[in-house]
């Protein structure tokens, strides 16, 4: 199975029905993608698939053939990734950090003029038990502002 992982072409020999989450963490050795539930409820396993945030625990490997996958390890190279990573540290969006990779990737497709409701909606499928969310919203808002300034 061939796909692009964080900008590099990659071939993986695994069962086509294997969960993308397990392939990323196992065969690809990228453990930044987390598992919180394995049933599409928590978003800890969020990655970008052709630029769209998906739960990698629900995606079979076969589904990514020929597509582009971005994980937290490759997030810095995306348009908003670096600003989001920095803001999650500076604004308290990351406490225990287990939801953080998923949160950052769920927020990554947002444009710099996203409204508060658009931010909430983008993150709707991602659970955080530590922050209660206000600090995550502040992090995303400040990152979007920063990436606007940077452009």
């Amino acid at each position: 199975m061939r796909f692009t992982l964080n900008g590099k072409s990659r071939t993986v020999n695994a069962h086509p029905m294997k969960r993308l989450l397990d392939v990323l963490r196992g065969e690809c050795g990228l453990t930044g993608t987390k598992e919180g539930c394995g049933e599409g409820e928590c978003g800890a396993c969020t990655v970008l698939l052709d630029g769209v945030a998906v739960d990698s625990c629900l995606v079979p490997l076969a589904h990514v053939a020929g597509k582009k996958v971005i994980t937290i390890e490759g997030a810095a190279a995306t348009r908003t990734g670096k600003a989001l990573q920095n803001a999650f540290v500076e604004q308290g969006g990351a406490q225990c950090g287990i939801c953080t990779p998923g949160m950052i990737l769920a927020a990554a497709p947002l444009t710099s003029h996203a409204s508060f409701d658009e931010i909430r909606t983008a993150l709707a499928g991602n659970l955080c038990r530590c922050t209660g969310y206000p600090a995550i919203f502040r992090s995303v808002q400040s990152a979007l502002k920063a990436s606007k300034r940077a452009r």
Partner: protein
Amino acid sequence: MRRKDGDAKVTGAAKYIDDLTFPGMLYGATVRSSIPRGTITARHISLPDGYTVADHRDIPGPNYVALIDPDQPCLAVDEIRHVAEPLLLVAHADKDALLHLDTRISIETRNGTPTYDPEASDVCFKKIAIDKGDLDAGFKAADVIVDGEYRTAHQEQLYIETNGVIAVPGDGRMTVYGSMQCPYYVHRALVVLLALPPDKVRVVQTETGGGFGGKEEYPSILACHAAILARKAGRPVKMIYDRVEDLLATTKRHPSIVRHRTGLTRDGRLTAMDIDVIMDGGAYATLSAVVLSRGVIHAAGPYRCDHIRIRGRAMMTHTPPNGAFRGFGAPQTLFAIEAHIDRIAEQLQIDPVRLREQNALRPGDTTATGQQLGRDASALAVLRDAVKRSRFHQKRKAWAGTNRGIGLSLFLHGSGFTGGGEVKLASKASLELTPRGARILVASTEIGQGTRTMHAQIVADALGLPYDAIDVHEADTAFVPDSGPTVASRTCMIVGKLLERCARDMRRRLGTLTPAQYYKKHGAFTVTSQYEPPPGLQWSDETYAGDAYGSYAWGCNVVELEVDPVTFDVTPLNVTAVAEIGKAIHPMMAIGQIEGGTAQGIGYALTEEVVMKDGRMANAQLTNYIIPTPLDAAPMDVGLLERPYAHGPFGAKGVGEMPIDGPAPAVINALRHCGFDIRSIPATPERLMRARLHHGFSKAGT
């Protein structure tokens, strides 16, 4: 101050337990009971080669999980007390080979009759009595008596990273890595179970994806299981629970029943408080005695009253053991008193703020245990600030009779272990000189709350060095002293204070030299300091009287919400949380603790329902155990007040737990304002629908 663990967490570099592998590692699984009570009569196991199977006969030491009472077996011998009772352990190199064990292992049992009602149980884990003044005299002085019964249910911690460990055996030693709050609890459990000398057991905390109490005592039994398998197989064994197993088997918040009988004068002064507290401990004692202890001590709330009687019992039932969860007994009893106070206000037709103002504890007043409060007692300050910030009275008036409601709660939370607990713990902290500054050596764990950052700030300030010159050693029992568990809002106030003392000692020893100069001239050195109680602190475990805590943090919550008149769904509109915590070492992280704890408290009040059916959690999935999502998050206004506590580092008190004490009663009081008489949580739409609409809302709010 940039948090120490921030960059690793946002780049995916931070290593949590499931991110680690060891050469030759096996995966372990637990075979559990499926009945709530009974006796094992036969075990049939037919597994091909390649499996390692262990049962209680593979335990070299005594078969119990060492904590307080030695009552919980690590693996059942023949008695079964709950549906998740661990019976056997199985390991295999291929994780998938562990999937359908039930087709190859069968356990025959004789079923017993389970008890789920703590009041019907005949096994009591712990009883506590607190008496102050003369209750009869108090009731004689009363013009009015108000009774009430309040109930709270289980709550799941729901850290996003499930419980997990890896045990690595090696020539007479055992090392366990894992997600945990208390490495030395795990260490002790392993030393006892494996019958090894302490220096042959090593416990290392890996990056931990949330705890909230759920990784306080539970990791001990899991570490024991992995170690038994690892010892038998002679290979490392990884055990990570999936979400369903984590929900079914691990500890939850104790359900409670609290009954109040309260005497007051006509104008609202408390004259007598008679309080009965029952906690449902589940199948084994675990931490129930101490949860009950914190619960009863907080049961009279932040109020002054000369005549108080409190009785508490923790009872056994046939569900998986209940255990630590942020707040540790206090959210249950504070829910009861704060819901009760609003019922009293309603009955006496007194404004709920005025009733609280009149009775709130002030500096110099004594609590139920007879503790005289210091100048940092801040009940009135937090109350007034929250009322003002939220414009409580204006909204209360404007929304009367509508489907919008506003309610408040006032509370306190003791920082550190209860009573003589800190003296018994005798925690230690160390500081080691490095060429560029100092390295912190403590067993306090970073579980998201910011331990590393906050400790480094305290040390940097006390040493007069930049924050970046301070390193923090990982919580590894081979290197760090026992600083006690990371629980009870003690990591800042108690362990932080020890570190402040270490830093001051180190500074004296350095004299005029910089760390680099000293290091070059004389080499490294380490200073250690050990807990000593602040002068004058008195406590008696026999009479349950005295100074229950070194100090208290104080809080007031105001919740504004709206009830859908058709579906009875409740939408929180705004939450005001004012907290007086002595000194916020890192204000952003303190606010993060308050916002996160408040959200958990709102979930506790409204949506988080553990449906117990025949002793088993019937909704053991994230799909139907509902914690707040980004869409439910109400805007929060957090206010921090600081009234320094003389014996905390730079005046700091505890902050971590208190935020979860107040939201539930504030929600229920807001619902009362909307006309719903709710006395138990969670207040699900079904419960609201059933509740008597005693002065139903007529018009919709705006």
